[in-house]
């Protein structure tokens, strides 16, 4: 008997059909990967199974938990079921925990809600759970607060809470999307071992096929609210890949073919050091952290360079220092032959025309009260004299069409666009001043795979058209692999390895690079299906 099954389940909110005729079942001890783009209905499926669908939603069909029909959404009966029979692991470990409670207390709470046992016994069980998810009470005390833990450790706490009452069904909604690749691999193997050990049915939701191929037993593809395909994982990836799967994997991106003969440097950074002060006052003798510690790098005109490293390695500080938003302690930055150090304000304006930036979060990149036309006009302040209105409109139209948006989009507000479209607007904003270098700080990390590939293709097209150079800053190795010619690997403020991207992926020399590449999930496919080179 399936632990969790959807029987002809449909859900609509107002006029919109969110889910249509979902049939899906998860057996005990099985991991079913539910994969689809953002907006395809993955998360609503998960929330429906937890009885957490929006109140306005109207549903048809049944969701069975261990063979029994689940109560109606929003009823008190759910309180007995949630946490005891079915539990959820959320995407964002930063916000899934209460910042004001110790992790021990939060696990204990989950236990005591469903069990009438003394506090001592609950404490002991909480400690056991922490040990089980790999947080030894010797090293990580249950008295710690969430902010004292890393992202991966927090996700382990979230998992401990989810399994606290030994539920028969677990739902994990993008549980590793917010994590680094190395941490992701650890969390995936933890989930697999828990499923095997406790015979849990796990519904694993993600947009990342590579992750699915590594962890799931069954794959279900959801597209526009419908399950369009279900198959055992091995078959799914082995058979010539159905149309649906291909639609998700999308076409692979060709690596840039042309060789860069240009000797002109778009960017030259020599021995940059950036420090963050740790001392609170002048008697405090703590020495500053060297966030960027003697980094040198150069990018030729029209070249794409990747900078990879885990969060906190100093990537973003480096990017901000290059554009002059972060003071440098030592070193020199030259952009298009213009020296950034000690530049006068007028010269800085000129340099900023040459280098622009695209940020990670498409939701906080734009002032929510500004129209796209205002957003795209802002960089024009760098021209010294602000262009006349006609010329502004022309520049905005060119930039919008270059990134594949309509010129009528100029009158819209940012919230009217999807994540992928917003990143296009961000690229359009970067293109306004016709820069020679664009720094992309995790610019595609927040996008699902289809939008990500569209944005990357757009960037490559723009490179051919305008000869602009890119610095891709990311923790996502596939981006680096697909679109860059050279790669730098950064760890703790230092560049630990550099070279041609193909060489680095083929023969990583530094241990850290090796661990990064080993941890990155790749789609496991039988040998007869070969990736395009």
């Amino acid at each position, binding site marked *: 008997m399936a632990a969790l099954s959807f029987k002809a389940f449909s859900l609509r909110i107002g006029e919109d059909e969110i889910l249509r005729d979902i049939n899906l079942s998860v057996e005990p001890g099985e991991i079913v990967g539910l994969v689809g783009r953002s907006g395809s209905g993955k998360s609503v499926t998960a929330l429906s199974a937890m009885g957490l669908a929006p109140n306005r939603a109207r549903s048809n069909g049944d969701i069975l938990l261990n063979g029994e029909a689940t109560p109606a959404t929003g009823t008190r009966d759910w309180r007995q079921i949630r946490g005891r029979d079915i539990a959820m692991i959320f995407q964002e470990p930063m916000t899934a925990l209460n910042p004001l409670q110790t992790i021990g207390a939060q696990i204990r709470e989950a236990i005591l809600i469903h069990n009438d046992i003394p506090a001592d016994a609950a404490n002991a069980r909480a400690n056991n759970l922490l040990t089980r998810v790999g947080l030894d009470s010797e090293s990580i005390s249950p008295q710690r607060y969430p902010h004292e833990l890393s992202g991966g450790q927090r996700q382990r706490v979230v998992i401990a809470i989810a399994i606290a009452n030994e539920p028969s069904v677990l739902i994990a909604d993008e549980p590793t999307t917010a994590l680094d690749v190395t941490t992701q691999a650890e969390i995936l193997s933890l989930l697999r071992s828990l499923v095997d050990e406790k015979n849990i049915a796990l519904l694993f939701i993600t947009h990342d096929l590579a992750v699915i191929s590594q962890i799931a037993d069954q794959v279900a593809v959801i597209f526009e609210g419908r399950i369009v395909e279900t198959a055992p994982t091995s078959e799914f990836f082995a058979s010539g890949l159905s149309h649906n799967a291909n639609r998700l994997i999308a076409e692979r991106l060709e690596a840039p073919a042309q060789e860069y003969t240009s000797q002109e440097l778009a960017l030259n950074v020599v021995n940059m050091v950036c420090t963050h002060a740790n001392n609170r006052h002048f008697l405090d003798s703590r020495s500053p952290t060297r966030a960027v510690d003697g980094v040198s790098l150069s990018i030729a005109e029209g070249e794409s360079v990747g900078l990879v490293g885990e969060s906190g390695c100093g990537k973003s500080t480096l990017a901000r220092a290059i554009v002059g938003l972060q003071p440098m302690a030592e070193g020199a930055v030259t952009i298009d032959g213009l020296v950034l150090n000690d530049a006068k304000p007028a010269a800085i304006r000129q340099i900023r025309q040459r280098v622009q930036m695209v940020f990670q979060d498409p939701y906080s990149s734009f*002032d929510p009260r500004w129209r796209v036309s205002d957003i795209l006009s*802002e*960089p024009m302040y760098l021209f010294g004299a602000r262009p006349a209105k006609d010329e502004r409109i022309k520049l905005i139209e060119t930039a919008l069409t270059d990134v594949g948006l309509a010129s009528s989009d100029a009158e819209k507000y940012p919230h009217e666009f999807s994540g992928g479209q917003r990143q296009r607007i961000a690229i359009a904003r970067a293109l306004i001043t016709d820069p020679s270098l664009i720094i992309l700080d995790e610019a595609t990390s927040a996008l699902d795979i289809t939008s990500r590939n569209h944005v990357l293709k757009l960037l490559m097209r723009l490179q051919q058209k305008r000869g602009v150079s890119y610095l891709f800053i990311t923790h996502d190795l596939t981006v680096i692999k697909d679109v860059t010619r050279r790669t730098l690997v950064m760890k703790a403020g230092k560049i630990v390895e550099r070279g041609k991207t193909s060489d680095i992926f083929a023969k990583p020399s530094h241990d850290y690079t090796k661990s990064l590449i080993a941890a990155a999930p790749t789609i496991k496919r039988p040998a007869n299906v070969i990736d395009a080179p």
Partner: protein
Amino acid sequence: MTNVSITPAKSTTKNVGFRFGVGVSAIFIAAALISNFWTPYTVDGFKIAERFASPSFAHWFGANHLGRDVLSMIMIGARISIGVAATAIFIGMTIGVPLGLFAAAYGGIVDGFIMRAGDLVFAFPAILLAILIAAVYGPSAMNAVIAIGVFNIPVFARVTRGAALSLWKRDYILAARMADRNRVQISIEHILPNISHLLIVQGTVQFSLAILAEAGLSYVGLGVQSPTPSWGRMLAESQTMISFAPWLVIFPGLAIFLFVIALNLVGDGLNKRLDPREKWLV
């Protein structure tokens, strides 16, 4: 990926509060405006025949020990209260908001200085400053305005600074800095419009507190002076007569109570309506 919005069950009870607040506030503001050119009776001079007239068709809210109509006095009192409170809030906002923006934009010593100066103001009750001003310049409506206004400066500075600080971490501020906009320009173009909803809400709540403060100051004789009526002084003058003419206390007290409650309900309702996060939920 998890952009599923979960809308809280919409209940009409919240709207009732907001509508009640708007309605009552509108009545008080209308009464204040009308009092500029018409009141049921004039409120100067003595009308011995009507002394302590109890509420009737002729005097809806009764008359006081000088035979003056209480309704007319409350209407004029509303004008005085609103005038004093609005001017004080204006002072508090025009000085406090720029200070808060400034503190958030520059940080460090500037921030510390502005905020500690604000703490200093918070350390003294408004009434002390009012007494000080009254001791030097004599009590008047203008002095009440200054005393209340000064105490609103740090309130607005704090609210502005807190909200601005969280916005300064957004990427669009970085983008503006990339476009070489300076801190003042960014504060005006990006920060201020995005915190305006908070300022409107805070302004409404502070307005109700200022009404209360004005009543308090005039109660102890530090506000507007006789013969101009004011709610606080009406209470002060009639408290010895409460046993035989309770309407002299009840109606001004009710006016203060209703207006303050109404303004708070408006502030609460605006908070829900103007919060940009709520828009995402719809």
